[in-house]
């Protein structure tokens, strides 16, 4: 089965849950910016959670389906139309052969996800289907999709689709408050500077992508002028460069860097970062690492519970 890209949208890539185990070679995890939406989309069509999907940013793609397929669009709302008729998101949809799916602009977040039953068929590179944009490998030919690309879909092993409970996704917020724990160099900042970081409403800059979100707002200064010796950067680290405006390092991040890290987005809120758009506002709340892990555990229980069994 193949799908032809008529229009690629603004920035569309093949992603799964990411590439782990190669950070020591400078290779970032990549993977879906909103992994929760990727997992839900896959579960709806009966795929493994980690099956390769399309991640569409700000403006969705227009795709022609060669054969009968089952799809689900999740994540940010993007007004998808199938042969001109609006379709619902967060539910499995049957697509007949020859149909054209047109995904529009996202209205309440940055990214929407298209899962197709069977999953997109791209070669695994270092164990993952995710596109590594800077390294130019993985996904579909190591790059974002272009008009004319032909994507293959694997034959589905099982066709047991699922449904969400009514209102199941109401708990998902696409923006607003983001919970953080202390970063590795939190002691490079005074208590006042950290308090300022936590009380400032930041705006996501236009110069933001999957590698990092630059924030505009109150500048934060470090306690001393020392330069940090280049060290490892965890996913979701918030570093403060010399100009004092924080940067959230995200899925396509550099694996090491030389700026102090004031805080770190908790794993349970990483999906919110993936839905932040340029000019969106964001505020940070501090939680303990124990609370962060509890929040992740709660989220995993929630994900199991939202489907009608």
């Amino acid at each position, binding site marked *: 089965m193949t799908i032809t890209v008529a229009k690629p949208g603004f920035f569309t890539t093949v992603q799964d849950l990411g590439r*782990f*185990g*190669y*950070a*020591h*070679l*400078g*290779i970032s*995890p990549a993977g879906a910016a909103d992994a929760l939406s990727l997992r839900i989309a896959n579960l709806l069509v009966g795929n493994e959670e980690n099956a390769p999907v399309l991640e569409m940013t700000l403006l969705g793609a227009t795709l022609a389906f060669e054969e009968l397929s089952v799809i689900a669009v999740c994540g940010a709302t993007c007004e998808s139309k199938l042969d001109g008729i609006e379709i619902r998101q967060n539910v499995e949809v049957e697509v007949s052969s020859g149909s054209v799916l047109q995904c529009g602009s996202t209205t309440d977040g940055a990214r929407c996800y298209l899962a197709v039953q069977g999953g997109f068929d791209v070669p695994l*590179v*270092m164990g993952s289907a995710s596109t*590594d944009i*800077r*390294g*130019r*490998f*993985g996904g579909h030919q*190591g790059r974002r999709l272009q008009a004319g690309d032909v994507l293959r879909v694997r034959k589905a092993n099982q066709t047991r689709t699922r449904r969400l409970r009514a209102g199941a996704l109401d708990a998902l917020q696409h923006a607003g408050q983001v919970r953080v*724990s*202390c*970063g*590795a160099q939190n002691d490079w900042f005074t208590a006042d500077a950290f308090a300022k970081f936590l009380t400032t409403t930041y705006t996501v800059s236009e110069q933001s992508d999957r590698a990092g979100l630059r924030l505009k707002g109150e500048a934060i200064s470090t306690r001393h002028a020392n330069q940090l*010796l*280049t*060290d*490892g*950067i*965890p*996913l*979701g*680290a918030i570093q403060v460069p010399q100009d004092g405006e924080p940067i959230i390092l995200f899925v396509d991040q*550099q*694996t*090491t*860097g030389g700026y102090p*890290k004031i805080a*770190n*987005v*908790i*794993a349970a809120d990483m999906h919110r970062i993936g839905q932040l758009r340029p000019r969106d506002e964001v505020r940070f709340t501090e939680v303990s*690492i124990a609370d*962060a*892990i509890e929040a*992740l*555990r709660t989220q*995993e229980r929630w994900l199991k519970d939202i489907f009608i069994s």
Partner: protein
Amino acid sequence: VETRFVCDAGEFFMKIIPASDSSLLAVFGDAISTETEEHVLMLFHALQAGHDDRIRNLHPGYVSLLVDFEPLAVTHQEVGTIVESALHTGQSAARNDPEVVEIPVCYDAEFAPDLADVAAHTGLSTDEVIRMHSSATYRVCFLGFTAGFAYLGGMPEALHTPRLATPRRAVTAGSVGIAGGQTGIYPTETPGGWRLIGRTPLRMFDPQVDPPTRVQAGDHVRFSAIHRITFEKLIQRRS
């Protein structure tokens, strides 16, 4: 909290700092030294050899190792214990016979837009810069920043030159640069602020090859100056 370790070479200390809900940072000091590099690599190699699938990623740096793990499968405390026992059992990473990787570099003007500036800054002639750069033996401290980018230690002090005030928007893959006391090779085309003094015809990163990077942390590297004709031949051979 610092923990004291004793190895063949003497004693050293390690501090564990939680870095996120899914990672911790094992810190061995606050200044670059060959001893600290060895401790970082010793822990890195010992953890790699442990093949614990709850540990997702290891990021070595100059004085620390970031250990990224699956937070619902293992706790910070458990990872701390794994790190400490890895250090107790780990053999010194200072291999008696480190892999020496020779990297041919063409220092021709076309590939070396900043060679004259490096010469002017250091007070050396361009020939002296080339001779010194290609006669030292470098240590691969770690790989980071971007896929296959090796941070090399051991550049002669006479060559130290600050990075460009304004980074270039695109640096060609294979470019060899200097930034402060560091030297390195851009494996893929990226923006970059290092002073470019040459280019290697070798592919430093190839995702289809195992391992995908030409050099690994702990290797030694030597640059050999090559003629433009050799450069072209090696480029042809690679494709």
